[in-house]
């Protein structure tokens, strides 16, 4: 039942594996081939828009979906593409190891990847090679650490309920 776009990508890029998640086409590709897959999707498969680029941190997962042939790493870069002409979506996922979190940037293919990649770098610390202006976008510039990582403390302030004379 796999989607014909997924099969096209799989035979075009041998290292990738097609999968199906709740009826949506998903392709797990090799980390280095991300930009080429995006260029292929845009040029040959009429995927005119990059909907979203984001990352997932699987450090503290309960149980994780097993896809045969995909070596689960800590980080995952997820890119959603949308084709207006063919009215379909595809999701490209690539595993990113913890010790070397770098991924080729998509800004060369889609200019719209500029902000989301900066946000992913800001909140996860995954650098995108070839990004024109990779800097923090959401956090203050002198912020230490990447907040959305599972091991980054969520800095919850212990809320004190006893009758506290001082305002805070």
């Amino acid at each position, binding site marked *: 039942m796999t989607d014909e776009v997924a099969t096209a990508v799989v035979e075009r890029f041998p290292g990738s594996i097609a999968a199906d*998640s*709740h009826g*949506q086409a*998903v392709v797990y590709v090799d980390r280095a081939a991300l930009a080429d897959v995006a260029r292929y999707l845009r040029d040959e498969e009429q995927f*005119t*828009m*990059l*909907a*979203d680029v*984001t990352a*997932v*941190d*699987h450090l503290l*997962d*309960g*149980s*994780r*979906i097993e896809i045969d042939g995909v070596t689960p790493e800590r980080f995952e870069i*997820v890119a*959603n593409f*949308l084709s*207006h002409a063919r*009215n379909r*979506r595809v*999701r490209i996922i690539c595993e990113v190891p913890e010790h070397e979190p770098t991924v080729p940037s998509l800004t060369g293919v*889609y*200019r*719209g*990847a*500029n*902000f*989301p990649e900066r*946000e992913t770098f800001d*909140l996860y610390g995954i*650098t995108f*090679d070839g990004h024109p*202006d*990779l*800097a*923090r*976008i*959401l*956090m*203050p*510039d*002198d912020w230490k650490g990447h*907040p*959305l990582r599972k091991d980054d403390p*969520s800095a919850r302030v212990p809320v004190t309920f006893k009758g506290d004379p001082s305002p805070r």
Partner: protein
Amino acid sequence: MSDVRDPKEEEELRLERQTDEGAQELRRPTRTREVVIAGGGMWPEDELGDTMIINMGPQHPSTHGVLRLMMELDGEDVLRIKPVVGYLHTGMEKTGEELTYVQGCTNVTRMDYAAPFSNELVYSLAVEKLLDVEVPPRAQWIRMMLCELNRMSSHLLFQATNGMDIGAVSMMLYGWREREECLRLFEFITGLRMNHNYIRVGGVAADLPDGWEQRVLDVCDVVAAGVAEYDELLTQNPIWRERTVGVGVITTEECLERSITGPILRSTGFAWDLRKSQPYLPYDEIDFDVVYTENGDVFDRYRLRLQEITESAKIVRQCVEKMPAGDFRVQDKKVTPPPRARIDESMEALIHHFKLFTEGFRVAPGETYVAIESPRGEIGCYMVSDGSGKPVRMHIRGPSFYNLQAIDAMGTDSLVADAVAIVSSIDPIMGEVDR
């Protein structure tokens, strides 16, 4: 890059020192390009010509919240414009990972605070897709009606602030007059004017109160009258047309390569609306048409949103006619908490109630991306679950976050006053930009 300092002094530094990107950049003129993690300067190879870099900063009357625009001006002409965001970053995606699926809606509804129903809907649809649960038809129709009413109130907010930004200050009062009607209707149906937490996983929180049909139709009539008044007031107004026609022009290719969706994309002549092309609610049983215009300037975006209000009113009227009966929430015990009265009667209901509200229902491991049409464009929710009661990852693709990338395409080589009109025509809501 910076040396290690003790936390106390560092804390002092952060609060005292300014966190604007441009200023740090100017202090270190000789910044080399090959540094991979570049300090976010205005532009890496910037050196001071005799132009002026000013901040249309976070606290500014017309930047729709805390958006900051760094502009390089030659007199009044904007040479380069760069949005700096993050001044309302609330860490909602981190909080989303710490809340159970039952509580998630309260967190998500505060992202795009002009259209809370769209956030709740996209979150609920994502969780329902992971759960493979079927929402009863009445709930779907209630959701559709409320989302369209929310589109009306959000576009009314746009008309109010867009008018005030461009100079028609009275539009603020008119816009709010109609929006107040919508908010009062939301309070009547959901109990709250904003941040309703009404669309939940599995359906809606409560059934529609009695006498809702008449009140909904009254609001539609009031808003239709208001929209006619705006049209008469502004569309033929020469000053308005002088300030908006031909300002901030963007083409379809520029929009598509910047992942821009919603009214901005439709204003360039590309009629793409998720309600029509990928219906996520029973939109196919409703006849409405996608509003689009041709030349993609500020005037077209104003006209487009005005027409979209009447379209949404048309949809809401059809929803009132075709509202099916039935239950408003999925009857699956594992997802929907039992009604309050049942808890005293049956022990099983008490257990379900307790389980649902302490650790929430469990979702099988999986991941999904769901996208719907919010008043600002395609809002998407990427959800990854690992079998526990809390999501591993809850990412909301905010349309305004991508629409802001249109500013340099529209704003370059325009006047400063036009920059205000352009930002207002993009209609960014900083809550969903910064999340």
